[in-house]
């Protein structure tokens, strides 16, 4: 099951407030308006196809935004569809893993969906390598590092997620099927670093060269030619070994 090829590009879902530190940052506000209660189900959002950027690609930042937020995460690419699965078997539905840079415009309220903050063209760096479950092992033992212009700015400890990779798949698949090729991000750390035009962002997982280093440079939006959709999207085929993710359309 784990070596099921990823034949189709699917929908990319991110999750808010999954890390314990991010939760702790928000805990005091959770019972206040407009939230009025802590979230029970996973708080999901979609990173649409127009947001996908390949490793190495420049990511356009709108002139109105002095800084963007860098959200390092691990993407789980679904192989066998997951519908109401148990946590005990959920990881069998993962075909492989990819690093992502979930870029956002900073936003202070989590009340309404973050489309205008998270779905700008190019706002999801993906890649460079698709690592097999065998190469990664337990995804929650990974630590991700974010470097801005070569300086370490942030570390995300995937062991500090409220829902583990397996539990997250189980809880999401309780109400919606994760289809073959769909992607679920494992969550973001708190106090995410901000970066601005001209800076180079690198994301890697400590001790996991199979995932490679995801690199993107921030440029002024106007400097980009009209970024295209993932034309001719080719998905990675999950295999026994990690390999390059060929293009923007790789997920």
């Amino acid at each position, binding site marked *: 099951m784990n070596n099921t090829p990823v034949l189709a590009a699917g929908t990319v879902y991110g999750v808010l407030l999954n890390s314990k530190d991010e939760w702790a940052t928000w805990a005091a506000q959770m019972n206040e308006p407009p939230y009025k*209660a802590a979230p029970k*189900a996973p708080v*999901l959002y979609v990173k*649409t196809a127009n947001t996908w950027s390949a490793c190495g690609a420049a990511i356009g930042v*709108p002139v109105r935004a002095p800084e963007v937020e860098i959200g390092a995460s691990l993407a789980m690419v679904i192989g066998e569809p997951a519908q109401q699965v148990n946590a005990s078997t959920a990881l069998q539905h993962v075909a492989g893993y990819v690093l992502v840079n979930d870029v956002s415009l900073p936003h202070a309220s*989590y009340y309404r969906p973050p*489309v205008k903050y998270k779905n700008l*063209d190019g706002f999801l760096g993906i890649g460079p390598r698709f690592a097999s479950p065998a190469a990664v092992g337990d995804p929650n033992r990974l630590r991700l590092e974010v470097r801005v212009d070569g300086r370490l700015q942030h570390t995300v400890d995937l062991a500090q997620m409220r829902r583990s990779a397996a539990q997250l798949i189980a809880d999401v698949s309780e109400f919606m099927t994760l289809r073959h090729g769909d992607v679920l991000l494992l969550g973001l750390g708190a106090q995410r670093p901000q970066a601005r035009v001209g800076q180079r962002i690198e994301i890697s997982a400590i001790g996991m060269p199979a995932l490679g280093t995801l690199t993107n440079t921030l440029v002024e939006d106007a400097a980009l030619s009209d970024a295209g959709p993932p034309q001719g999207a080719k998905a990675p085929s999950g295999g026994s070994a990690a390999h390059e993710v060929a293009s923007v359309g790789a997920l």
Partner: protein
Amino acid sequence: MKHARVAYDGAIHDATEHHGRLRLADGRLVDFDAVTWLPPLAPVPWPRTVLALGLNYADHAKELAFKAPEEPLVFIKGEASLIGHRAHTVRPAGVDYMHYECELAVVIGKRAKHVKRADAYDYIAGYTVANDYAIRDYLENWYRPNLRVKNRDTCTPLGPWLVDTADVPNPMALALSTTVNGKVTQSGHTRDMIFDVPYLIEHFSSYMTLNPGDLILTGTPDGIVDCQPGDVIVTEIEGIGALVNTIRTP
């Protein structure tokens, strides 16, 4: 022209409406009830963006005790929640309030980035009807409306037809209505949208590229009621179509 996508005789077909029947791409004429209706959308090689508006009719906003938004309240759905005409939608066990939402759905026809309102209609392939079900029991105030309410399997019927833009001279002048088991429960008019279709295209394309086949579900007027297993819900938009759906248990 009215386009459909159907499963028939072991394969999936593009079809068009022809005097009350379906003409398949291979020329065969078949009856409406001889096919399985799929969402009337051509496949796309990347995941379709499905934008959906909340509170885009002033009366519905009032019904839900919200003041009208100052900018579009938009959320995104996954393609996997779409199903076709005459299909069944699941009401989860143990919930108190599940309601339909009859919505004009815009299907994008060509890549749209930084489109001006005056040009917006050039980027639309056509229109169809969406029923954007919500299960209010699951509402939480985090990225609301949250996906557990709005992105469930079977909960976004779409169809039956994709009607070409040329056949809908003014999408802002269409009556909408919903019946539950034959009784009218919702009636409204697209002229009452807070943010009209050209505005929405200009607004979204100002920061995100819309691609062919992407959808904008433009929100629903007031008149929502709870739906129970066995209920037959017909969401209809003048000149676009009548989308039939039946509620079932899990």
